[in-house]
């Protein structure tokens, strides 16, 4: 039962690492945003293959049943990654709004300058 869970986690971590590397190669994910996922995948990989590391961590966390510790750590890793991406998305949204407003103001000013030039040319 435990072995099966660890094997599934091992397989998922390999899939995650492969998917992230593939996406980076195809430029679907920028390198700087792939680091969090790769770290999460690597930690999952190590913990699913090293019973010593998993037992030590479970002991530190005070959890007697090691697979529960593994699930807790994976959940924590993903929460950290999601939190980090929420910050990044919020920054991007702020930048987008500022750029949109700035672009609209510049277009407005350019349009008015063009109209003034046109008037001067006509007169």
């Amino acid at each position, binding site marked *: 039962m435990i072995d099966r869970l660890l094997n599934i986690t091992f397989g998922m971590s390999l899939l995650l690492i492969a998917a992230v590397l593939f996406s980076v190669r195809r430029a679907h994910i920028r390198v700087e945003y792939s680091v969090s996922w790769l770290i999460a995948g690597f930690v999952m990989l190590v913990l699913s293959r090293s019973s010593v590391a998993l037992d030590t961590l479970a002991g530190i966390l005070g959890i007697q049943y090691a697979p529960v510790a593994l699930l807790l750590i994976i959940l924590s890793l993903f929460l950290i990654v999601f939190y980090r991406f929420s910050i990044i998305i919020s920054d991007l949204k702020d930048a987008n*709004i500022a750029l*949109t*407003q*700035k672009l*609209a*103001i510049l*277009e*407005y*000013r350019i349009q*008015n300058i063009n109209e003034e030039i046109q008037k001067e040319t006509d007169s």
Partner: protein
Amino acid sequence: MIKATGPDPLMILIPAFNEEGAIESVVREVLDVLPNIPILVVDDCSTDGTRDHALQAGADVLSLPYHLGLGGGVQAGYRLAFELGFSYVIRIDGDGQHDPRDIPAIFEKLKSSGCQMVIGSRFLNAGGQHTSFWRKLGILFFRAVLRPILDREVHDPTSGFVGVNKEAIAVFAKSFPLEYPEIEALVVLQRRRFRFEEVPSQMRKRQAGRSSITPSKSVHYIIHVLLGVFVNILKYGERRTKLKND
């Protein structure tokens, strides 16, 4: 292009999203009350003829390349007003609910009181005409929430009929709440120790279109605004503590 001229340059700001049915008459009504006043319609990427109708009526139009929502649109207007050097901006809605004949009273109050914001209130000396029961209930709720925060009564905290002076324009040009901005904006100003006043204003029926706050969005509205108010209190509370320590 609109220009800031005279000793107290005033700009009328009208945020609009798909308001082709009302925007033309709103602009014309404003011009009837205040001829030659610079009017800026911020077209929040409308899919109808809002832009053309506003231009035909005699307004300048700032067209956003994609939809930002009410707060983003209003802030774009404040940014332009700040860049062009306007001393006062009065914002009215593009759906025709606000009566432009109330603009002079807001403007006079802004100039005479020296406060940073003047709100056109539908509940001051009036019962909030053309306001739905649920909206009135929401307003009562937010009045109760804001009372201890602002340390005073505000009769119409959700009013979009608002005038601001240069100091508030400078603040809002840099930072303005994005969604449902009216209540949060009040808290932002209060935290900066700015003052606001209210003047009575008439609320009319919408000339066209529908309110952006549907019944299904009401719960989201309440949670969002409460969270925004809470965050602003935390943000400015922290800043004040830092200033005191420095």
